[in-house]
């Protein structure tokens, strides 16, 4: 009872915010009580070294006082918690002491210092109280933990260019975009060409893409050609990603509504002249399964397009003006269709444009 009383006193003093020196005095006083009360002291094995536990001396005393009557020597976190709640609310003392305290294993009686790896911790594990449990697992309604936006997106106009066609001018674009998470994404791709004010070819693809390896996505979806000729729709499946040596690769197989089949492959690479002046070679080729005279397309290897573009990335890297040279050649039956129409089978262009992403 003595001890209890002194705790009450002490706590009240602290609560009243009296000076630290007084508090310290009081603590020393109590620690003697505790020792006299024969409560075995949970000592750190290496007490004479400068030590964390020793610095916490005052705390240890608190907890000893608190449990002194129960013959305990528990030290540590949870006793402290009880302790300071008492400091601020004198009433709590009664609650804390009224609650039955289960006597723990008396770690302090074991001499840990002689064992290299004791089975029991040198600093005893604090007993858990209901207050601790409540503090440890509060009921939460929030789930907004620390993670960044899970759905992201990327839009790249890889090519947005013009050239001097004879007659008039030509324009072309090639763009791709994704939106989604790290594994599952929706992809969009579009490509097209205009010459002298009319659209020669244009398509839009929409795919579901799933990462199957760190570098490769499998994509499947639809492609719609608005031009040339009447519009047509394809089912598509493909892979895209980065091959070793950092080649950007995409390969897609298409099955058209008319039964036409198409394989498209594209390779791209970046050569850093400087970190902002970048040379970008690319090759794209189309292989068709059937002749399609209405669109001047023959079966087999139909078209190969190669390009070399030199871009300069401006300060924020999102805009990069470029110029380049492209060469396009048609082969096989496709070449025959072209010849029949009086068109050439090869076309070389000097292009200028901008690459941009956001």
């Amino acid at each position, binding site marked *: 009872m003595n001890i209890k009383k002194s705790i009450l006193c002490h706590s009240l003093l602290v609560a009243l*915010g009296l*000076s*630290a020196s007084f*508090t310290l005095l009081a603590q020393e006083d109590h620690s003697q009580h505790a020792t006299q009360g024969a409560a075995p002291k949970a000592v*750190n094995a*290496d007490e004479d*070294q*400068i*030590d964390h*536990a*020793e*610095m*916490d001396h*005052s*705390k240890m005393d608190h907890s000893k006082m608190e449990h002194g009557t129960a013959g305990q020597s528990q030290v540590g*976190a949870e006793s402290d*918690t009880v302790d*300071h709640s008492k*400091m*601020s609310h004198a009433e709590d003392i009664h609650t804390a002491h009224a609650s039955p305290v289960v006597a723990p294993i008396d770690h302090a009686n074991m001499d840990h210092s002689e064992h290299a*790896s*004791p*089975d*029991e*911790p*040198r*600093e005893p594990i604090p007993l*858990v109280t209901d207050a601790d449990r*409540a*503090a*440890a*697992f*509060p009921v939460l309604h*929030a*789930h*907004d*933990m*620390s*993670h*960044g*936006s*899970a759905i*992201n*997106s*990327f839009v790249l106009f890889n090519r947005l260019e013009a050239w001097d066609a004879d007659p008039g001018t030509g324009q072309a674009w090639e763009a791709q975009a994704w939106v989604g998470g*790290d*594994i599952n994404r929706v992809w969009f791709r579009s490509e097209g060409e205009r010459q002298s004010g009319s659209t020669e070819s244009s398509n839009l693809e929409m795919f579901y893409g799933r*990462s*199957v390896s*760190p570098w490769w996505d499998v994509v499947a979806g639809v492609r719609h050609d608005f031009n040339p000729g009447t519009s047509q729709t394809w089912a598509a499946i493909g892979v895209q990603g*980065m091959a*070793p*040596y*950092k080649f950007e690769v995409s390969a897609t197989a298409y099955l058209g509504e008319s039964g036409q089949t198409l394989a498209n492959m594209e390779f791209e690479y970046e050569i*850093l*002249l400087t*970190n*902002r002046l970048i040379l970008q070679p690319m090759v794209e080729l189309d292989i068709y399964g059937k002749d399609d005279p209405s669109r001047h397309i023959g079966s087999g290897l139909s078209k190969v397009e190669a390009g070399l573009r030199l871009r300069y990335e401006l300060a924020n*890297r999102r805009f990069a003006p470029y110029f380049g040279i492209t060469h396009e050649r048609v082969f096989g039956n496709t070449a025959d269709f072209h010849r029949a129409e009086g068109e050439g089978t090869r076309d070389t262009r000097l292009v200028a444009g901008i690459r941009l*992403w956001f």
Partner: protein
Amino acid sequence: MSNDTNSHAPGVLPQVSRRKFVQGLALGGVAASTSLWRLPAHAQQAQFPQIPMLAGNQFDLSIGASRVNFTGRPRPAITVNGSLPAPILRWREGDTVSLRVHNRLSGDLQTSVHWHGILLPSNMDGVPGMSFNGIYPGEYYDYKFKVRQSGTYWYHSHSLHQEQAGLYGALIIDPREPAPYQYDREHVVLLSDWTDLDPAALFKRLKKMPEYDNLYMRTVGDFINDAKRDGFSNTLSDRGMWGRMRMTPTDISDVNANTYTYLMNGTTPSGNWSGEFKPGEKVLLRFVNAANMTYFDIRIPGLKMTVVAADGQYIHPVTVDEFRMAVAETFDVIVEPDGQDAFTIFAQDMGRTGYARGTLSTRPGLEAEIPARDPRPLLTMEDMGHGSSAKSSEGSCGANMGEGGCGANMGAKAAVVASADPHAGHDMGASSVEHPASENGNPLVDMQSSATSPKLDDPGIGLRNNGRKVLTYADLKSIFPDPDGREPSRTIELHLTGNMEKFAWSFNGIPFASAEPLKLKYGERVRVVLVNDTMMQHPIHLHGLWSDVEDENGAFQVRKHTVDMPPGTRRSYRVRADALGRWAYHCHLLYHMDGGMMREVRIEE
């Protein structure tokens, strides 16, 4: 003095925090309100800049929006009591501290404060969704807990991207017993990285184009130079190795000075924060790396630095010329400036793209020479734990080394052994690595290291053989013996994983969003083994519990709250599960955490 109350008149703080235009240079915006905090006596007489300090055991902290200007453009920031960095809080070991944290942000922006490295009940830890619900605008949260430790720590928001926006500050806990070292004066040196970008936009940019800030990739010109130096075929094979991995050796940090302005105590390098000394004094510098994404290498040309504490905990003093700070670490360092009036505190980022700096001086306004940044380092295959797989490493050695040459690279003995003979590693603690099944065929794992050792005595990339004595983890030795003493009853091995192209990060290939909590039994002691399977460096922080780092033989070495994990390392530490509840466990590069490198550690009875 421990119980004196420094509470503030209610109603004063809101005005202070509102729309304060905080000048980067000398915190001019806040200096007018000196009466709100207590400055150390020595600081009041001089015009040296001071971060506001609040001492005592009751605190009112007001989180609000402020304008700051570090770059010439006023930008929004999130601040505490209108100050960036947040006020230094000064507690006393053994006190029960009460901190009422108000959210005075507009909109529905939830906020939080996490006390980094502090032992406390879970519901005081300040992680929204794990330890509490967060603090909503107009509301406040009462933090109250007993302070059971001493030393230098820090605090910051644990709500999405708010730390990047400015919500961080130093936390000093005065010990009950005198420290085992003496000093005449002290300064907090808090380092951080500021961006004018909206922090959420920066995260999104990393998702779109992770290599945005890597403006140091090797070019055609570098190839020609390397070929001249090392031969064409060696250079080609080096480029081939990196090319096959689809990675680049200049990838030292995801965000660098291309995006960031580095700050020392909230001051830009040109603003030159300065701290006073009198010749002959022993000055304690409390370094805190409060950056979002930046490792700093710190030195004070002309001065030896004696490191006396790491992460707030005393270590056997070790005197060095330079030390590296992982994000979230703190180091207490004693210097004895004398013989000149000014010394530069130089903190270059690990990638050598920029620096923070300040000056220790006898009078305000002085500055000393600012050293040149070191050459930019290049990662090597050995750095990444690819000793055994890099067949051509002999040949490419010279080509790979931007610093130090081959010898430096071989500092990690175990890695060399493993590289010479994959089966020889086991007796050195560097076994050939087994990877968790969840990494196999996992698109979120773009690399696995094949030879890892603790590399505790490795100064790290860019610091090897630089002619200076550099602090390593092997130098950090707690002055106390293992406070628990038990052998860990089990081992939990976790691999740090990522996909650089996707800017996706995880443990064992499983990002936080789809990971189960890591469960510990109350009272048990476990060994955590971390293996870095990425080419980036990660500071791993466990909330609520100490991380007792082991030496190469598995014995207790140093008590920390944040454990640095360079690429290609395997490091272990002991965790005593003596704090019930749910604890965040994550990479403290906060965009890596936001990108998934996080787990919940749940300690149950």
